C-alpha cells in the first residue's frame, strides 16, 4: 500500500485481554507491580481484576498504528489520554481516523475502547516514509 492510497479510517483492531496478555506484556515492559499480574492483590486494592499497564497501552497504540501504516512509517509522537481501566476478560478495540496529512507527516486520531468506556484516546503523529 502506498502512502497516497492509505484509507482515511484505520482498520479496527480488537484484542482479547486474556490474563496471559496482561501478564506477559507487563513483564515484557519490566513492570512488576502486582496489580498487573496478581488478581488477589488487584482485587484487594479495589480493582475488578488485573489490568493493563500504561506502558503496554502505549505499545498497543503504537502497534495499532504501525499495523496500518506499514514498516516504512516512523512514529514521532504519541499523546494518550488515559480513561477507564482495561481489565482481564474484557476486549480492547482500537479505532482511528486520519485527521491531517501534509508533507509526508500524518496525524491519526486513535481511541481504544473497553466495555466500561474509553480506555485510551489520543493522537499519533508519524512520518509515512521515514528513517528511524
Amino acid at each position, binding site marked *: 500500500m502506498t502512502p497516497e492510497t492509505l484509507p482515511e479510517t484505520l482498520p479496527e483492531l480488537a484484542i482479547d485481554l486474556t490474563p496471559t496478555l496482561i501478564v506477559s506484556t507487563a513483564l515484557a*515492559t519490566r513492570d512488576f507491580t502486582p496489580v498487573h499480574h496478581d488478581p488477589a492483590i488487584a482485587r484487594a486494592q479495589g480493582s475488578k481484576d488485573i489490568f493493563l499497564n500504561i506502558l503496554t497501552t502505549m*505499545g498497543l497504540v503504537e502497534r495499532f498504528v504501525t499495523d496500518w501504516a506499514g514498516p516504512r512509517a516512523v512514529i514521532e509522537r504519541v*499523546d494518550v489520554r488515559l480513561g477507564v481501566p482495561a481489565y482481564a476478560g474484557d476486549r480492547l478495540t482500537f479505532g482511528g481516523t486520519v485527521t491531517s496529512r501534509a508533507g509526508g507527516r500524518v496525524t491519526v486520531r486513535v481511541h481504544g475502547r473497553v466495555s466500561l468506556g474509553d480506555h485510551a484516546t489520543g493522537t499519533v503523529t508519524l512520518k509515512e516514509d521515514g528513517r528511524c
Partner: protein
Amino acid sequence: MTDPLHELADKQAALGEVRGAPAPDPVNAPMIRHWLAAMGDANPVYLEQGVAPPAMAQVWTMDAPRDRSPVDDVLAALDDAGYTGVVATDCGQTYHRYARLGERLTPATRFTDLAGPKRTALGVGFFATWNVTWYDEDHRPVAEMLFRVLKFRPPEVGKPYPLQPAVNQDTAFFWEGAKQGELRIQRCADCGALRHPPGPMCPACRSTARTHAVATGRGTLHSFVVHHHPPVPGRELPFVVGVVELPEGVRIVGNVVDCPIEKVEVGMPLRVTFRPMDDRLVLPLWTPEEA
C-alpha cells in the same frame, strides 16, 4: 499559592532536570523480541534495522537503580495529605529517533506542575505532571515523555453508596446492563417501541412481552442543573445532572462528568461511561463526546 503542597511542588520544579542512573543493559534484541511477542506486534522493521520500538523508551530504564526523583517527594506529600488514590490521566511521548541496539539510555526527570485541588469523578484530587527525557551517551535526547497522574482522596473504602435505586423485575435488566457496560433501553417484543424509563406494559400496544436494545451510547444534553446545596450523601459538591436525549429517541437522566462545569451546555454531544459507585451499583454517566 501558599499552601504546603504547592510550596513543595514549586520547590521541586525549581530543581529542574534531575538525572537518574543509566539503564543497566544496553538496548538489546532479546528484550525487543520479548516485547514484540507480548504485544503481538509483527512489524519487522525493528529487528531488521536494529532499532527498538519507540514506545519501549521507558522499558530500558525500568530496572535501573532508582534514586529519589523530584516527583517522589510530591507524591509522598500528597499521600500524607490523604490523597492516597492514584490514577494516570495522560501520557505523551515524543521520539527524536528510535534507539539503536547497543546504546545505553539515561533518564532525567523534571517535576513540572501541580494543579488542584479539583473535584473529579473519583473524588477531590491534584493533578501532578512531570517530564522524563532519555539521553544517549552523547547527552542527546532520544525520547521524551510527559506523564500526568491524578492523586485523589478515595471514597471511604467499602462504604456503600447511599443513593441506591429500587429495583424490581421490570427494571433489573437496566441495572444489570450497566454492570456489564451496556446502556439498555426497553423494547416492546411485539410492536418494537423503545421506552425509557421502562415498565411492565407497552403503552403503545399493551403487550407485556419485553426485550431490550443496547444504546449506541451517544446522546445530546437536553437540560441540566448544577447542584450546589444542600449537601447530597455520596456526592461531592457541586455536581451536574442532566437530561440526555438519545438518538434512539428516548431520554435518560444522568450526571455529566469529566467536564468543567462552565463548559456544560444544552445541546452538547455526550458519550456514556459506566462508573462503579460501590460493590453493587454501576451508574451510566455522561462525558463530553470529542468532536
